[in-house]
């Protein structure tokens, strides 16, 4: 057989083998396919959210007259209206808007890190990775505060039929609405937060490797690019989570 290979060249089109038809290394392809499957995981959760919410009664009265009740699904603006340092002030969605901005900024700095990697500029990669890590950590800290506030609850709480007041949220009961409202909030934002945490850990590993010159010696910063793909995906998922939980 080996003699025959020298006689003539096999075909060499885009999909004829012996090359990378999508012009992407195997590592990047793997990351893309992983993200595709992860999108299905999140997709399933958001469908669960949609169907569950659809099965619950919506609130139909005046927005001003809204009170928390297990009878209806709460209006998100009435639930997420707190801001650290502004106790008791009604600031609908202000804090989560800030969180979203932070995460989007982290995506911008991530792009800059990847771009610096293409230029083989080690110093710039370090700088932008550090910014991304900082924004990522800030986002996680914000989420921790938001969860704490959600669990502790507001001063008003929910007035129960027996005259007592229930504050905050647990898996079994919460002051904002039906139990599943809190269940889904914890589960989906938690699952997203877990993804951010994983990405954040990867970023720290990449930062250490960059500082140690691992990628520079390797001749390319593709690892930063792959983590970047993941990081953007997690941001994109947040956009959907934000839309479903906070806006609609």
């Amino acid at each position, binding site marked *: *057989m*080996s003699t*025959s*290979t020298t*006689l*003539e*060249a*096999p*075909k*060499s*089109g885009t*999909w*004829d*083998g*012996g090359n*990378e*038809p*999508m012009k*992407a*290394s*195997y*590592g990047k*392809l*793997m990351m893309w*396919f*992983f993200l*595709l*499957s*992860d999108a*299905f*995981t999140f*997709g*399933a*959760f958001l469908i*669960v959210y949609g*169907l*569950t919410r659809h*099965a*619950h009664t919506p609130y139909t009265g005046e927005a001003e007259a809204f009170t928390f009740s297990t009878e209806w699904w709460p209006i998100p603006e009435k639930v997420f209206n707190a801001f650290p340092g502004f106790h008791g002030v009604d600031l609908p969605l202000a804090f989560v808007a800030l969180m979203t901005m932070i995460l989007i900024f982290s995506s911008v700095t991530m792009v800059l890190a990847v771009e610096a990697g293409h230029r083989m500029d080690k110093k710039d990669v370090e700088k932008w990775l550090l910014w991304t890590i900082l924004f990522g950590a800030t986002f996680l800290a914000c989420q921790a505060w938001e969860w704490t506030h959600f669990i502790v609850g507001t001063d008003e709480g929910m007035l129960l039929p027996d005259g007592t007041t229930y504050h905050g949220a*647990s*898996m*079994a*009961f919460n002051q904002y609405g*039906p*139990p*599943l409202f809190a*269940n*889904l909030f*914890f*589960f989906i934002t938690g*699952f997203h937060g877990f993804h951010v945490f994983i990405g954040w850990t990867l970023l720290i590993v990449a930062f250490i490797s960059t500082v140690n010159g691992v990628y520079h010696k390797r001749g390319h910063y593709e690892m930063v690019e792959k983590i970047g793909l993941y990081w953007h995906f997690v941001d994109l998922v947040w956009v959907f989570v934000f839309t479903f939980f906070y806006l609609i």
Partner: protein
Amino acid sequence: MSSTDISMTRDVHHVHEEHDEHHHDQNFFEKYIFSLDHKVIAKQYLFMGIFWAFVGGFLSILFRLQLGWPEATFTFLEPILGGWIENGKLNPEFYLALVTMHGTIMVFFVLTAGLSGTFSNFLIPLQIGARDMASGFMNMLSFWVFFIASVIMFWSLFIETGPAAGGWTVYPPLSALPEAIQGSGDGMTMWLISMALFIVSQLLGGVNYITTVINLRTKGMSMTKIPLTIWAFLLTAVLGLLAFPVLLSAALLLIFDRSFGTSFFLSDIYIAGQALSNTGGSAILFQHLFWFLGHPEVYIVILPAMGLVSEVIATNARKPIFGYRAMIGSMVGIAVLSFVVWAHHMFVTGMNPFLGSVFMFLTLIIAVPSAVKVFNWIATIWRGNVRFTAAMLFAIGFVSLFISGGLTGIILGNSALDIQLHDTYFVVAHFHLVMGAAAFFGMFCGVYHWYPKMFGRMMDEKLGYIHFWLTFIAVYLVFMPMHYIGIAGFPRRYYNWTGFETFNIFTDLNTFISLAAIFGFVAQFIFLFNFVYSIFRGRRATENPWHSNTLEWTTPVLPGHGNWPGEIPAVYRWPYDYSKPGAAEDYIPQTVPFSQTQSSNLPNEKDFE
């Protein structure tokens, strides 16, 4: 690809010497346990698959004993089952655990991991002309995560409250409430942990398979020159990649319902008169999530078998596969349709009849690509110069079982008929023929055919024939009568039917089925003996014992790490040039350029000379 310079064996004829002078100086663990070599990982999957198959088969024999002889006492099983035999009777809850674990083990651990894990790993790099998988490390990780999942699942068989018992579909609320039955306790927790790990393993494997097929094909190996096996593995991996995450979602939500007090799938439940606090969830929602995986899962099981069978039939009929592109098209069609038919498992859950008819329509469409494949296989065999090797027999057996089981699928796909047939033995008979036994036949066919490349020796053909005929007969003896009692309304998963006067007339038939099942199970030991014995004592194989065209047969008898000593061969033609008029021999390997086969080139191939 020449830049990937992996060291290889110099002398292919003295395999044992090569172990000593290997360039990497791999120790035992690197070579056989934590190996990065796709061929070793494939064998690891195969051994695990065979182990699980015997466990799963044994469990089915236990519950067939109960069904076949409901009045008998099974004191003789006490040494094995211990406390699960009470006064000589099988514990009813253990019976449920048996059917649950039989299903879980067979569907996931044998026919998913054991089948596509073995053959995707073994054949993808060899048949597309690659040194190894794209990422050997992730491939190894995939196997070891599967191994941990296996250990947990196996361990759950031995805990005091027994393994999961809510059916392999683990529908809540039964599976969500530990108070409901014993099997929903620790056994169910372990089931969920094991399955979550299993899914991770599948995803690690899946991204690797897809990426390898896209990026690592050798020169000339275009997507229309790859063997049908590779198309099948590629589509299987895509299905797994898109379907398993949804099962992961369902499993995670179920874990939260069970352990953290959420209500995703629970609402309005009373246990012993006490209302549970869970409210607002939907049990049907779980079924939707489950079957969104569950239906593609049956194609994850059957597609690799179809690929293996296509290859074996073409090779042994000494004819080009009939309708190569139609085969690819029908597999793509099946893969796409598999995602839009899941609710046909849920016709009687109270879904809107209009929605039911939509799903029925989509379900019945699958018969079209399936029939295309069946006709193509038959047309390939038609007037072929058929060599009845053991692998070929199993391939033909596969086609037979696929037809028999597929026809009842058309019946079951009708939402109106399903009202009568749902959850009866008719369903059990249908899916055991079409995806259970058929996929097993595909697996056997693959093992017999690629055994020489795996172990450098041949399996015994005569034992193979005996194994085939006993298995083939047993499968039909078990599942044909099962259709009959199913149509009569005999429900599945029932521990005891002697309380129902109607079903007593089927006592003899049930005994008959159980006898046939035991007969079929015993026959598998012939295979086991043949398999193990041939590893050590089998007839030595040549490089290309079947005179096959695909690339794996251009490697040495026992390919080393890196598969080809020297350069990877380039590919010039499709893999099915069998019995080409004018050719010197009845096969032309893919590595032979058209310039060397001028006597047999077709008019349109003259341009390539």
